[in-house]
């Protein structure tokens, strides 16, 4: 039995978003995400972090061991801060540890199968399930409009065709099928997989639109990173002090950049750490920088860029900020001089940030594969296409193609054996 998760509250902006998790692996996954388990059925505040240590949210966590849970299985509830970035991040973390997004009605179905739901007064419950199903169906396809449906249906159609050819080769060996069929199928799988991968990559922008941009502020200690964060956010989010190494962990604040939600992360200064805690902070800072969509590399005017900062500047989507412009000193080449004290350069920095943000996440509506659920389904399909490409026997390849089709079927609806056979008989003259 898989461990499944889903958002229990309506998708979209809200103060709180409740994520549910259910299945045999719930305990392990919750521990990985939130650390120590709270007492059963008691809410506790936990810091949720991704497997790589990135902090995802501070959330109320409930551990609901089976059988006395909604589904009858080991379960958990995560009361997250509302907002697409957090929800998407937690979803990705759960998916990364092996859970999968729930199918419509799946929580309730499990509850019923495990004898947890009394349906004597069932009509109301069923209405709820219809609503849940409809909401998930809307979530799966409706919101994205016809584009995603058409895209996935086209993929599923091509995949059905490939599977039909593969099946024809298995069922009708001596029917005089074209000799090149086997190679054609193998080639076409590769083409389809490449297209799907390209689309996933291209639509990362779409995911950014939904999940929010990640902006990391990095630089040497006492370069003024926390002050910059506060200035950009317009409030005191990070503790600022003249002492180097004050920010030992990652501090986050949310802003809008060109209408896009963004998470601004202030990090520990990059230097040889004085103690273990600071070393951990540096490690996290580098990690955050590597994963960020945009990096603000901060260097005080007049300072000589250190190796770590130079390395940052080398990557794309890095904006080099020469801080403390009010103090004076030469501005490094290509850097934007900013003073948080006088406000000098701040509008220009903001403009530059918005420009990069718009480039990274075009709000054209062309991005179709934006939701984690869609991306998970397509990634799953791609994984099986990969299996199909390396399968050593035709029946294994057919099985892998069938699994890939089922994965896409989570977005397009199930494709049964009959539909595949229809294609076989439409395409090939079978029958001796």
């Amino acid at each position: 039995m898989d461990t499944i998760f889903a958002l229990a509250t309506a998708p979209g902006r809200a103060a709180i978003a409740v994520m549910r998790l259910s299945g045999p692996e719930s305990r392990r996954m919750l521990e990985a995400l939130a650390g120590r388990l709270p007492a059963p059925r008691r809410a506790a505040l936990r810091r949720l972090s991704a497997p790589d240590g990135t902090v995802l949210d501070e959330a109320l966590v409930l551990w609901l061991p089976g059988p006395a849970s909604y589904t009858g299985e080991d379960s958990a509830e995560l009361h997250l801060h509302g907002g697409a970035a957090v929800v998407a991040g937690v979803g990705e973390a759960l998916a990364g540890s092996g859970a999968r997004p729930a199918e419509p009605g799946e929580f309730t179905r499990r509850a019923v199968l495990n004898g947890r739901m009394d349906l004597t007064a069932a009509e109301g419950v069923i209405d709820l399930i219809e609503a849940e199903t409809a909401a998930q169906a809307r979530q799966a396809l409706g919101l994205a409009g016809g584009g995603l449906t058409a895209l996935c249906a086209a993929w599923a159609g091509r995949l059905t065709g490939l599977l039909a050819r593969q099946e024809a080769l298995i069922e009708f060996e001596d029917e005089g099928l074209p000799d090149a069929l086997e190679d054609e199928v193998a080639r076409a799988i590769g083409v389809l997989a490449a297209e799907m991968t390209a689309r996933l990559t291209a639509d990362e922008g779409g995911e950014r639109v939904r999940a929010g941009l990640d902006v990391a502020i990095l630089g040497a200690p006492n370069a003024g990173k926390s002050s910059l964060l506060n200035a950009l956010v317009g409030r005191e989010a990070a503790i600022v002090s003249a002492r180097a190494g004050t920010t030992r962990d990652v501090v986050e604040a949310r802003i809008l950049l060109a209408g896009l939600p963004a998470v601004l992360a202030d990090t520990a200064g990059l230097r040889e750490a004085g103690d273990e805690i600071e070393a951990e902070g540096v490690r996290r800072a580098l990690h955050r920088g590597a994963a960020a969509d945009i990096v603000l590399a901060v260097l005080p005017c007049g300072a000589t860029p250190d190796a770590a900062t130079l390395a940052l500047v080398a990557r794309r989507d890095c904006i080099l900020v020469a801080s403390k412009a009010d103090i004076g000193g030469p501005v490094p080449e290509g850097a934007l001089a900013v003073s948080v004290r006088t406000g000098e350069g701040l509008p220009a920095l903001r403009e530059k940030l918005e420009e990069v943000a718009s480039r990274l996440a075009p709000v054209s509506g062309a991005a179709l594969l934006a939701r984690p659920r869609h991306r998970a389904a397509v990634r799953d399909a791609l994984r099986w296409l990969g299996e199909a490409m390396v399968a050593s026997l035709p029946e294994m390849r057919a099985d892998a193609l069938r699994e890939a089709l089922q994965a896409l079927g989570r977005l397009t609806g199930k494709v049964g054996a009959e539909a595949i056979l229809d294609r076989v008989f439409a395409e090939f003259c079978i029958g001796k």
Partner: protein
Amino acid sequence: MGRMFDVVVVGGGHAGAEAAAAAARCGARTLLLTHRLDRLGEMSCNPAIGGVGKGHLVREVDALDGLMGRAADAAGIHFKLLNRSKGPAVRGPRAQADRALYRAAVQGLLRETPNLSIEEGVAEGLERGPDNGIAAVLTGEGERIGCGALVVTAGTFLRGEIHLGPERLPAGRHGDPASIGLALALAALDLPVRRLKTGTPPRLDGRTIDWAGIEAQPGDDPPEPLSWMTERIANPQVVCGITATAPGTHAIIRASLDRAPIYTGQIQGAGPRYCPSIEDKVVRFADRERHQIFLEPEGLPGTEDIPTVYPNGISTSLPRDVQEAVIASIPGLRRARILRHGYAIEYDHLDPRALRPSLEVRAVPRLFLAGQVNGTTGYEEAAAQGLLAGINAAHRAAGGTEARVLLRTEAYAGVLVDDLVTQGVTEPYRMLTARAEHRLRLRADNAGLRLTGRGLEWGCVGPERAARHRAFATAVTEALARARAETATPAALAAAGLPVNQDGIPRTLLEVMALPAAQGPALDQAFPWLRDLSPGVRTQLETEALYAPYLARQAAEFAALEREERLRIPEEVDFAAIAGLSTEMRQRLCAARPATLGAAGRVPGITPAALVALAGHLRRGASPARAGAA
């Protein structure tokens, strides 16, 4: 009161023969009623048994100690393992049989079956008891034969009508009368009836074929038997031929389409897509320049007065003169004489959704239907149904109420019956491996391991097979357990000449066996006990190793499916009374009456919410509802 049997089987085709033998093996006093004793076990169409999917069914029938595999081995004159170049899961054993030898083999096996009486006679009427169920069969001679359960295997005999060009004549198989009385009796039961169509090619005089000008196709040497119980194939083997239609053939057919019953509207029933007539192929695949024809001898040389050849690939209902012109246009057949013209046959079948998974008619207790009458095609599909109907009829006659079913997850026969009773048919149903979700598990090579144990529970497996099976199953289980338990480090494996990634992770023997590079003598040297395994056990081990990684990845899905398959929907469930089901869902469920939650999920159009409501209802039925549990 007349005679009384536990089970009466009407019809002596492949379904009837298996049903009668299975019921009798289960201990039921059984009567097989057939209108011609000498035609018991007749192969009415193609003289071949098995193939991809079909061969799987034959092995499953055999695993339950049925007749078909043994009869085919006794009569086989050309054996071929299809898909030999592919993996074991999709390899399908196939045999062409000598028609007369096959009949003799089936008749011999039936005669030596204890508890079984075989009589010539026609069922003309059905008598129903106080519960509306079957009580007796009334024969053409006016005899009333009481029965605890009745299996009807009417084939294409119900309102069968032959089309040969403009000619139309009522009939069952060639030369057999349509069963009028039985048809009327079944019609009186008011079961849902639909019309289907199938066809057969002209038969040729083998002496008039130019064999020298035709590509020869020999069988496998050594032949692979269809039955697990067969030690060796005794018959001499024949060679088949392959030819093909020529452009001239297609021109002749195109010029005659205005006289083709499938295009003039004379034939209404849906034909099988995988077995189209030659006129259908020429029209639908107009760009193909040739269509293959396999020339299959129907008997051993010298055993028939006239050697008959079955030209596989040119089923047709074109008029006689067109058939003659078509044959004369084909390379190697220019002088070939037609012994009997091809024809199409339209017939009634009963909508199998009216059946329980036991193949018992839901509305008529103790009446079982099996074979072509349920909308299937093929000997193998008929045999599998006959076998299961016979087992269930015997069980029912003995007072049993639980259906004896095979799940989709354990047998092609289970896939077959489940497809029939939950989906119904839109064309004559043929088994294909693509229909089985768990194809890598359901192999022809492990049919016995999958099913013979079940057959022993049901009492349909004789002592000889039981003993062989137990020994084999134990050996395989032990070997598998050992191969899963025994491990070696990559370094040790490399030292033994078995190259694997040097990642330091120990491999089980089963994992090692799955590696293409780790085969051959080095494997036996590293694991000497493998040498002591019998070839059959060794093959099972290798096949399990081959598919293990795939099967592991599908394990969760498999378990979930199996769980839902085992959640039974009781016969008496009133779908209309289930709270929370929409009217549409009620109607769909009432029409299909799925037997399990898994089957309900396969009913077209059923929503997840409906499944939840249904599951809730089943749960509540199984144990008293716990108030406030949610």
